């Protein structure tokens, strides 16, 4: 492990070149660069085997990285003392069945170094927060999956951490529970905590995350706010009552402001997927811009040509669209096979 870095007050997590190769030369991570700002809710997405849990486990010292540089809460990655200020909910976590909910919180709170008096007060508050007060004295062995998950979240908060890493927090939780967990995340954010969520449930993340990163086969495919990530894919769909001839599209492209084409060319130049400026699909014209002003010239041109416009609507891709695009092999148009290693791929990701 290589790493020393000066404390960075802006970033709760600031890592570069994080790599992990397991036995059998399985490359789980192949040079991750990622920054999580203090006080934000950050979502980590990716298909199975993308390396999400490996990355979280490296940050929590559960797995030793092949190499990593950077800091967590301003201290070198892997430094145990940092964990006093970090909360963690592992995926598929398992509490000892012989403990009651209250005992489990007390035990893990004590391991986090929380004094006895503080543990008692904190466990009561947290059980209340996750709606488990009535189950405090019941053995964990009798808990449902969702209840264990709620207890797990309470456990992760026992030391009142500055940074909370939650690996699949809504796994096995019913819709009401998921809403409750979302509320907890929002509450944490409002208290200035940094939350790092690793999840498959894209709609959940979309509702709470300030920024996301998409991990595919051990590399960051894209990273940023949802707005930033969707800018390239935003468009206006213009639906016409009758079809127009295909050659009309060239004329329409000509009336588009030049900066639209420039933006798309720049994206292509950066290797990012960028659509054509205007595409005709049946009776629908798709204009690759997020600016209403840019569409006005196209609309005028269409009206001058006598076209009848049925509707104009802005389209913003969902997180799922982004995700699907990231996990789809552009060469084959099919999703990458689950698994960690891939022969070629991008390294790192945009900030």
């Amino acid at each position, binding site marked *: 492990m290589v790493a020393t870095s000066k404390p960075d007050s802006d970033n709760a997590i600031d890592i570069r070149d994080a790599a992990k190769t*397991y036995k059998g030369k399985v490359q789980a991570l192949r040079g991750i660069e990622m920054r999580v700002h203090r006080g934000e809710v950050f979502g980590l997405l990716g298909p199975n085997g993308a390396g999400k849990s490996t990355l979280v*486990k490296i940050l*929590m*010292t*559960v*797995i*030793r990285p092949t190499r990593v540089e950077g800091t967590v809460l301003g201290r070198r990655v892997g430094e*145990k*003392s*940092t*964990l*006093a200020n*970090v909360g*963690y909910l*592992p995926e*598929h*976590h*398992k*509490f*000892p*069945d*012989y*403990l009651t909910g209250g*005992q489990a919180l*007390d*035990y*893990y709170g*004590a*391991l*986090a*170094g*929380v*004094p*006895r008096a503080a543990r008692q007060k904190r466990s009561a508050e947290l059980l209340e927060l996750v709606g488990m007060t009535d189950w405090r004295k019941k053995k964990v062995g009798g808990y449902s999956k969702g209840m264990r998950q709620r207890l797990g979240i309470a*456990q992760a908060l026992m030391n009142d951490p500055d940074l909370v890493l939650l690996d699949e927090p809504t796994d096995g939780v019913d819709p009401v529970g998921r809403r409750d967990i979302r509320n907890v995340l929002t509450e944490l954010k409002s208290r200035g905590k940094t939350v790092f969520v690793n999840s498959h449930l894209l709609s959940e993340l979309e509702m709470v995350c300030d920024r996301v990163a998409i991990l595919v086969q051990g590399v960051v495919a894209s990273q940023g706010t949802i707005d930033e990530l969707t800018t390239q894919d935003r468009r206006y769909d213009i639906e016409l009552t009758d079809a127009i001839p295909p050659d009309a599209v060239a004329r329409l492209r000509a009336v588009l402001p030049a900066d639209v084409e420039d933006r798309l060319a720049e994206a292509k130049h950066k290797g990012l997927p960028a659509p054509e400026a205007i595409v005709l699909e049946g009776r629908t014209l798709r204009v690759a811009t997020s600016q209403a002003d840019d569409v006005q010239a196209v609309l005028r041109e269409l009206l001058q040509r006598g076209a009848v416009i049925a509707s104009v609507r802005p389209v913003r891709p969902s997180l799922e669209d982004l995700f699907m695009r990231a996990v789809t092999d552009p060469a084959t148009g099919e999703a990458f096979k689950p698994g960690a290693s891939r022969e070629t791929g991008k390294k790192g990701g945009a900030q």
Partner: protein
Amino acid sequence: MILTQTTAIFLDAYRELNAKKLFWITMLLSGLVVAFFALLGINERGVSIATYTMEIPGVNTSFVSQEGFYKTLFSSFGVGIWLTWIATILGLVSTAPLIPDFVASGSVELTLSKPISRARIFLTKLLTGLLFMALQVSVFTGASFLVIGLRAGVWELGLFWAIPIVVAFFSYLYCVCALVGLLTRSTIAALLVTILFWFFLFLLNAGDGALLAIKTQAEVEAERGSARVERMVQGTSRELVALRRSQLPEDERETAEIPEPTLEEIEAGNLRITQTREEVARNERLARSLAPWHRGVLIAKTALPKTSETTEFLNRVLISQAELDQAMDNQAKAIQERMSERDTGAEAEAQRRTQQAVRDRSTFWVLGTSLTFVFVVTAFATWRFTRRDF
């Protein structure tokens, strides 16, 4: 913070063992064994169980004092059988899941993500297993101390040596159990390998004991045979001289110089000399041929824990050399009643020398090298735990 974390790990281990019920079952069985001790006694006729007396030759207050009886009972039965066999098996069954459960997927991440070093977590967890055994032995020894004090009027503080000795004994097996539990994450595999390892140690000890006993017996037989040959040579020589003198005319018998018979003449005069010489040579050959095997076993034992010697160590503390000699004499007398005089002497001497040889093994060799084994295995397990990905 360290105290808070360590206390939490100990408390959790107690809860885990408590949940398994075996902790209390072992405690209850220990109580029953001590209660059995309290019922046993020794009087001038034999061994008493409550009000019933069982007459056993050589086991009564004429041969063994009440103090010696109870101390031997505690050391041989209480420690030798109960603590180092039955309670150890129960202890292993109880504590074997501690490490595999701890490193189980989904459980270990919760602990490793806390601000506590891996080495400290692992060593503290190991310590909880040893504390389980220490607690069991302490309760058993404390109760035995009271029973022996009340029944025999002897308040023998030396009994408490059983606590470190049995814990050391347990640690020989427990470190292997913990290592296998860590490597395989399987309680069954950990228990199975530990029992096999224990069986291997048992075989090694049995081999050591058998080789030592046969070798010593052969040496004693050879020594005694040589002495017998010497005596027979001298006796036969005298007889031959007397015979030759008797064959001289009566007036020369007193004054004549009779030459000493040659060895050939003596051997021709007593065929048992040659037979005994052959026996001596056979025994010497046997002792010589066994010596390298025994050395090999001892070298192997040096690198491994010495379970039987560790238990025997308590006898050294509790039973003095004089008491042991007395017991050996009593045993010799008992054997004498059953066997011929010649066999008795050699067997008793061989047994005495064998016991002495075992007793003469140094504390460092017995405990030092065994604990070195524990240290090496524990260090390897800890290193493995600190380097492993979970």
